[in-house]
């Protein structure tokens, strides 16, 4: 592995919702290839039977009662929005015309 193609980089950019130029695609192909190549050193480590660590503390899911409470108002929720209409966030149409 370790060889990452420009096509893969463009695919990943699409998954990440990033628009990248041809130049950036080349740069990220180089960057990702060398980082992934560097990461291949982990293959030296025998991890058979080792549990993955997602979290260092011994915490289980923490539940609380699902009770409504006062947090923010609709006006507050909207005040940092780039665009809004009729008390709601407004976004461009999902399909191009």
């Amino acid at each position, binding site marked *: *592995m370790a060889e*990452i193609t420009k096509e*893969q*980089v463009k695919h*990943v*950019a699409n*998954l*990440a*919702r*990033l*628009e*990248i130029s041809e130049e*950036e695609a080349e740069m*990220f192909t180089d*960057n*990702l290839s*060398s*980082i*992934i190549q*560097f*990461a291949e*050193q*982990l*293959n030296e*480590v025998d*991890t058979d039977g*080792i*549990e*993955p*660590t*997602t*979290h*260092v*503390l011994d*915490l289980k899911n*923490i539940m*609380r009662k699902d009770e409504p409470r006062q947090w*923010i108002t609709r006006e*507050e*929720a909207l*005040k*940092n*929005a*780039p*665009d809004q209409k009729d008390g709601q*966030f407004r*976004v*461009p*149409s*999902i*399909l*191009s015309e």
Partner: protein
Amino acid sequence: MSLFDHSIKEIEAKLHNKEITVSDLVDTSYKRIHEVDDKVHAFLTLDEESARAKAKELDGETDTTAKLFGIPAGIKDNIVTKGLRTTCASQFLRNFDDPLYDATVVDKLHAEKAVTIGKLNMDEFAMGSSNENSSFTPTRNPWNTDYVPGGSSGGSAAAVAAGEVLFSLGSDTGGSIRQPAAFCGVVGLKPTYGLVSRFGLVAFASSLDQIGPLTRSVEDNARVLEVIAGHDKMDSTSANVDIPSYTEALTGDVKGLKIAVPKEYLAEGVNPEVKEAVLEALKVYESLGATWEEVSLPHSKYAVATYYLISSSEASANLARFDGVRYGVRSENAENMIDMFKKSRSEGFGEEVKRRIMLGTFALSSGYYDAYYKKAQKVRTLIKNDFDKIFEEYDVVIGPTTPTPAFKVGEKIKDPLTMYANDILTIPVNLAGVPGISIPCGLSAEGLPIGLQIIGKHFDERTVYRTAHAFEQATDHHKKRPQIGGAN
């Protein structure tokens, strides 16, 4: 001599005796900021009007016993402050002028009457080790402005070093408090994962991020931690543990303390001056009655690779929230919604942020998840086990905070892997979730600070602080100040 050469405890006494007022303290802050910050660039946003009003209000109060009464504080700009611009040093959030709430740590500082002076510069979304990834003006090192202050909490460290505030808050995901503390000659603690609430901290890598204090002395650091630590029902990953007194642990006594020194932390690649300073520090500990032995953290060489896979994966998920719908800057050039997401993110994020999102998205994508992300999580277990094993026999682990003193602006920014390697001594601590502190332990021949790192057991900040404090009492490294803008 500046008022900020005094400890918080001394200032508390001066306020109590009416030798000084809170307005004097706040004045000291802004005067110094106006004097040096056009060279240091530690601050992104100042809150001068509110801070002065707050000072006046506090000067009218008769009860001055709050733990941080009137103390000027700087807050890293990835910690949300109600009504005060919070940008994460990103163009995406350059107009996020009116956050709706205060982070829990900010609430706690205010409850103890600290005064927020402003928001501190950083690498964009905390991704970087030099502050050169700030999308505004990068912070410079107050000891020598040709050098970086470290990162990502570079503004937090530089502001304390330059005497602009008495303490600051930073965040540390792979060394982002300790590395800039080392580069700027201040004290910076990354607490045990879960000790301090992350509610209101803009998430980078959720299983690694911790907020912690940067100060001029260990005593001040312990005092701030006492204020910000503790369980928070708004952060279900915050630990439900009792918070002991950290300041009471500062006895100066380290007789019989068992120190482990990992040979990997003084290996090739560590600058001889840094190694020398650490060995000198170990002699100080010996003279104080502690003992040290060389040990091995055999998996530490895999820490950088493990960290970049895990932290970038978590970041790629966390940064998905920046979509241009609810806050931030939306691209004006979009034709439809998907296009709007893509253009807003691409125009708003800097190169390093995109690189990490790309790496993380790749590592989590179908076909690669087991080979990279899950593999890294398994190696993380081995790195954590290395520490667990050492802490069965020793009280603390000691080594350098960074392999070298601060590097020059522009020196490493072109090669991501060289920049990442700078964090090799701090990253294992985040992966294991244990607490670590950096304290000043000398100056290089070029006059740049060197940091000593002290690492402790989970939730044993008391021993970490006691060890750090004993060294501080026995030496005067922490009293040295950068000469920028005249003595401060």
